[in-house]
């Protein structure tokens, strides 16, 4: 398989399919009374989070524990050595010296996981880096889509919102395009990067002209702090033009789905009734994250020698 998961660019359609197939089998384990598997006994996984996260960190922690790996949580907050000025590199070496097998990293800077992968022998899994990528989110989204649509080929997906700052959008476009889906990026011109066409997606600024044709409407979180940057006039105007409410949803195809990576701003990019409608698979996305992350940990760590402490090469 792969040593590190840094970007969806790394994965072929065949590899993605293998990850999703493995996740499907692991998902059935989560439905039975005894949910723990002995597979990664003796392995150690570290969650290294420089940015706030609830679902991703908990989901990775639970995935590792379900496979019997030991889990260390390191949050770069006021209680950690980062508050004392420890550099990213020193933190990486510290973890390496303790003998961790995998580091799951979220960082505000794009490329931080790739840098980490050059420093340590452990496997590095990108749990979100700046506005770059969030590959495990894309994989769990692909898994959730596949539960409803047998084939990605020709599937019409609209990703709506702040494409410019969204790592979720970047990873999802790459994954969906690799699997053969037709992706349209929808949002105000200020929030769609100029090079987006080179990702293999089409661009539209008019949700109403797209909504009736899509199989999946994937809404991104409006990062409210961006409003100060004047990239869109007001939340109200955003909601009116690019939000999915029940009126717009009524124009969607019969079998179509609504997705959102969370956390939601209800009333902005998605209305409360749409988020709870039968079309919405938002909660499935969350629960599927567990199986997909178990699959990745199994495929990436289930082979090769376990790490041992203090053999750091600096």
């Amino acid at each position, binding site marked *: 398989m792969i040593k590190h998961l840094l970007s969806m660019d790394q994965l072929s359609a065949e590899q993605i399919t*293998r990850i999703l197939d493995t996740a499907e*089998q692991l998902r059935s384990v989560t439905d039975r009374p005894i949910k723990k598997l002995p597979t990664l006994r003796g392995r150690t996984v570290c969650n290294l989070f420089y940015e706030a996260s609830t679902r991703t960190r908990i989901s990775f922690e639970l995935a590792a524990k379900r496979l019997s790996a030991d889990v260390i949580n390191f949050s770069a907050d006021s209680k950690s050595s980062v508050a004392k000025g420890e550099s990213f590199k020193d933190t990486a070496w510290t973890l390496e010296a303790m003998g961790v097998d995998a580091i799951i990293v979220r960082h505000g800077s794009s490329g931080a996981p790739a840098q980490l992968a050059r420093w340590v022998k452990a496997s590095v899994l990108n749990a979100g880096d700046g506005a770059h990528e969030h590959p495990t989110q894309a994989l769990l989204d692909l898994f959730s889509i596949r539960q409803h649509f047998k084939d990605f080929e020709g599937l019409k997906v609209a990703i709506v919102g702040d494409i410019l700052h969204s790592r979720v959008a970047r990873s999802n476009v790459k994954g969906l395009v690799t699997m053969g889906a037709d992706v349209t990026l929808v949002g105000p011109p200020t929030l769609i990067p100029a090079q987006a066409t080179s990702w293999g997606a089409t661009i539209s600024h008019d949700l109403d002209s797209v909504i009736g044709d899509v199989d999946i409407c994937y809404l991104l979180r409006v990062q409210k702090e961006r409003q100060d940057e004047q990239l869109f006039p007001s939340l109200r105007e955003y909601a009116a033009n690019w939000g999915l409410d029940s009126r717009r949803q009524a124009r969607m195809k019969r079998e179509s789905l609504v997705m959102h990576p969370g956390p939601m701003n209800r009333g902005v990019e998605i209305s409360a009734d749409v988020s709870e409608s039968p079309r919405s698979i938002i909660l499935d996305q969350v629960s599927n994250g567990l199986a997909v992350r178990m699959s990745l940990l199994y495929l990436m760590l289930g082979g090769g020698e376990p790490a041992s402490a203090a053999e750091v090469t600096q």
Partner: protein
Amino acid sequence: MARSRTGADVDFSLKARVMEEADIRRALTRISHEIVERNKGTDDLVLVGIRTRGAPLADRLAGSIASFEGADVPSGALDVSLYRDDVALRGPRHLESTTVPVDIDGRIVVLVDDVLYTGRTIRAAFDALLDLGRPRATRLAVLVDRGHRELPIRADHVGKNLPTSAHEAVQVHINEIDGEDAVLIGEVLA
């Protein structure tokens, strides 16, 4: 190419076909009778085939029991990949579904596999079963016992005892998966 006991492809040069379709059919018929005789009927019996090739064998044993006993014995499949002791050694394997149709608590589980060799697959199967429930007893039926045990495990029902050397490979072909029924023995090529 052939499969090793762990399912990986190994280079294999065929030496002999040691069982043909009719031999396998007779062996399975005998085993199915033995299972019912040992259990004094079919009450509480569950057949659980170990993926990949134990699963169709368990289904066939259930079919055979149904034909002479008139009773439907539930039959399921167990994937033991996640319980193996060689995950780190051999890397992640393709996972298949585990489907055991009934609650195994208090039942008599008969594990079914194609080849019994080191016993390590069976050990993994014990752990996998334990996570599904607590059978009253667990028994083991195999089509071929080729010896070379690395653990104190033995089969209750054996289709054929096949003395082999550790350099040899035994390959079972099952119609549902391989398009024919046969047991082959060959030399592993380095």
